[in-house]
């Protein structure tokens, strides 16, 4: 299978300093937050790549860089072999851009309340001067709504229905890649099930590729073929779904899987993980996970581990070979 998206050494640094006068008076240095730190992965065509991580791990930033909402500070994102930020040929960039769409978390904020559903759905095509006759009606039926809904406004729909409208809009320009940033986090479980099933069906039907960003391990396990785990802006482990969930190698992945509430965990007395995500402006030295890591050794405090292959997994841990004992 061919590689659709290649993320190479991607880094994004945000300047979160106070204004220069405050810095001068309070004698503070510039504060830089490294949201994404040398992240490297590839997404194969017609697969679902799941990105998991807790808040502040940089998963949404990666999504935004891939769709082109944010420029990278270093590194590159290549889609269909085109680097969107360095490619000189506008026509090429334009062609790739129309192959990417996004579905956001909050369907209440991502639909313009003053537009009719038909205009919302056809906008990605209309903006490029395409033919939109009967398009909204057809797409609405594809996502399980009625063609008559095209003349309504977003406020007339429930959360799950709105997310279906967002999906219809994402499908309008016939994209190859859809970046889904927490697409079901705002939805109730029964509605979430409807939306996840719909997304799977559409993937089969249109041969879509998804980048599925979520903090919910069970949802990622349900949807993804390959999963990357982020911690403090770094990719700490990546493997295909079953390998990652059955035999996690990185201590953070192990901790995350252990901490996630389980439906069959009746009265489970697991020791909860220690500590919280550290301040990303002053990340720990060496391996960023070492202050919380149960198996950390001296080397972890000084030497940041590189992502390397161990069996079928790529993992950034010095002790990956022995971490499962």
């Amino acid at each position: 299978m061919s590689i659709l998206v290649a993320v190479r050494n991607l880094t994004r640094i945000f300047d979160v300093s106070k204004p220069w006068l405050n810095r001068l008076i309070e004698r503070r240095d510039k504060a830089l937050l490294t949201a994404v730190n040398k992240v490297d992965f590839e997404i194969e065509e017609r697969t679902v790549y799941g990105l998991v991580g807790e808040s502040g791990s940089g998963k949404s930033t990666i999504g935004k860089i891939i769709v082109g909402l944010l420029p990278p500070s270093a590194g590159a994102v290549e889609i269909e072999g085109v680097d969107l930020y360095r490619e000189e040929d506008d026509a090429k960039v334009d062609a790739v851009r129309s192959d990417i769409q996004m579905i956001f978390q909050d369907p209440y904020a991502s639909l313009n309340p003053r537009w009719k559903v038909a205009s919302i759905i056809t906008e990605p095509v209309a903006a490029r001067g395409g033919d939109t006759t009967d398009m909204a009606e057809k797409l609405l039926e594809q996502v399980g709504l009625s063609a008559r809904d095209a003349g309504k406004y977003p406020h007339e729909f429930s959360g799950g229905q709105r997310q279906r409208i967002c999906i219809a809009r994402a499908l309008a320009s016939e994209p190859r890649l859809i970046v889904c940033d927490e697409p079901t986090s705002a939805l109730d479980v029964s509605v979430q099930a409807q939306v996840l099933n719909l997304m799977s069906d559409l993937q089969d039907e249109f041969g879509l590729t998804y980048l599925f960003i979520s903090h919910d391990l069970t949802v990622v396990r349900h949807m993804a073929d390959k999963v990357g785990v982020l911690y403090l802006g770094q990719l700490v482990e990546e493997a295909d779904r079953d390998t990652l969930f059955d035999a996690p190698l990185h201590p953070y992945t192990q901790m995350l899987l252990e901490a996630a509430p389980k439906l069959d965990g009746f009265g489970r007395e697991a020791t909860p993980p220690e500590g919280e995500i550290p301040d990303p402006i002053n990340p720990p030295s060496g391996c960023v996970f070492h202050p919380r890591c149960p198996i950390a050794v001296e080397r972890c405090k000084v030497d940041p581990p590189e992502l390397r292959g161990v069996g079928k997994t790529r993992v950034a841990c010095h002790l990956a070979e022995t971490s499962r004992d």
Partner: protein
Amino acid sequence: MNRNSEATLSVRDLIVDIPTRHSVLRPVDRVSFDIAPGEILGVVGESGAGKSMTGNAVIGLLTRPAHIASGEIWLNGDRIDHLQGEPMRRLRGKQIGMVFQDPLTSLNPLLTIGDQLRETILEHLDVSKDEAHQRAIDGLKEVGIPAAEERIDAYPHQFSGGMRQRVVIALALCAEPSFIIADEPTTALDVSVQAQIIALLRRLCRERQTAVMLITHDMGVIAEATDRVAVMYAGRLAELGPTKDVLTDPKHPYSIGLMGSTPLASAGKERLTQIEGAMPRLDSLPDGCAFHPRCEHARERCRQNPEPRLEAYQNRAACWFVEDLYL
């Protein structure tokens, strides 16, 4: 209506009404349950099912025009549903502790956490200022805040989300209440922090024999934290029983659908069972069982009033055909 005298909290046939210009909406419809000392009762349901409304009714925090139309609420043998104003305020904090979803909005940003803890302790317990200070520090230590002596003078914004929620729990516990209501206490938190908070709640509840009503939409949290679970749908109790029984062998068609639509950690990519449609709006509840338009087993009786009801301690699921469905 026999009340269980051993329970810390007894709710019997609670009805909450919201009069509007056109009709009277009923977000909570004849809900009955008990919570024993040291027991955690989970209340689960989708948005709009009436879980928070039930919780707010119990602690007297309904905002007008919502009000308790009928029913009884007993706390430690006293009837509290008719209490209002000052008596109710004294009861909250002293006998009822509260933990809400967003720890930042439930703490006062202008006061140090020490001020807030001491204020609550002095208000409800007969102790000196020094003793209140010591109790505040002990409370923070108990919920696992490191360096409690120094941190007590910090403001809420100086804590992380998980630490803030610990402060809120310390605040809820500092007057040693016999009942705690926790409304989505971990929804705003990360998985690893959520596990810490759930473990903390369980430990404190066991040590102090506090009754806890844990409102959440997360089935995983329900499974790990609660002893019994109540499933709510359209303001009514659909099912109530021991957590393990309800989760592994749900009886009500809605609970069955709810369990089927939750992606299982152990399962692979197969399709999720989905319940078609959505929960009815309160102003257009169907006759009979509120779930019948979405229920694949619905029969004639389900479409007619009276609807099936869950009688406390008599049946587990509010469905006419519980027995038939499993033959």
